[in-house]
């Protein structure tokens, strides 16, 4: 596809359940970002990959959150033992280069609701 694709679009999880969110970036894009967006707020940075290397995970809110991009393309964000405060839209973005002078292209997000 032409854009960043995320799946599922919607996920309802029971508290304590593990979830996995998938991101297919634009083909060939070097950089990949995960963001968390709460209702009425802007995207908050979670983690950043350059190819398969996770260069920054400073935004992950707890050790229940884990992200990987093993082959430098598709990425998965995993949340273990979900809590209600994890309910948010999770956004994935990719960009073609690892430089400052480039924009990020966003997917439509996965809306996670923990009940």
């Amino acid at each position, binding site marked *: 596809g032409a*854009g*960043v694709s995320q799946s599922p679009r919607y996920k309802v999880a029971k508290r304590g359940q593990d979830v996995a969110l998938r991101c297919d970036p634009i083909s060939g894009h070097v*950089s990949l*970002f995960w*963001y968390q967006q709460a209702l*009425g*707020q*802007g*995207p*908050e*940075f979670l983690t*950043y990959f350059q190819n398969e290397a996770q260069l*920054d995970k400073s935004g992950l809110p707890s050790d229940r959150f884990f992200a990987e991009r093993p082959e430098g393309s598709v990425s998965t964000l995993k949340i273990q033992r979900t809590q209600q405060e994890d309910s948010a839209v999770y*956004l994935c*973005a990719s960009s073609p280069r*690892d*430089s*400052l*002078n480039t*924009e*990020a*292209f*966003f*997917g*439509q*997000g996965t809306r996670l609701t923990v009940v």
Partner: protein
Amino acid sequence: AQSVSQHNHHVILSEAASLELGCNYSYGGTVNLFWYVQYPGQHLQLLLKYFSGDPLVKGIKGFEAEFIKSKFSFNLRKPSVQWSDTAEYFCAVILGSYIPTFGRGTSLIVHP
């Protein structure tokens, strides 16, 4: 740590009114600046960007923004809004970490 402030969280305008949304950032070094828009039910899309050069940047759909270094600002403007401009608008900044940092957004409602 860098931060991005958007002063107006909710703006309501009538069609043909002029728009200005404020954005300030806290870092004093070299910055790259962006405005993104999110239409209802759609993904974040780039409106315009500033990397260097002319501080007045023109984007899509008649939007423009002006980078004022002395004020650490990058305000978004449009002379005459349309109903179709109803959306969420986000200012973002990239510094040396390559990671875009976003403001909390402004919800714009344009009445026909």
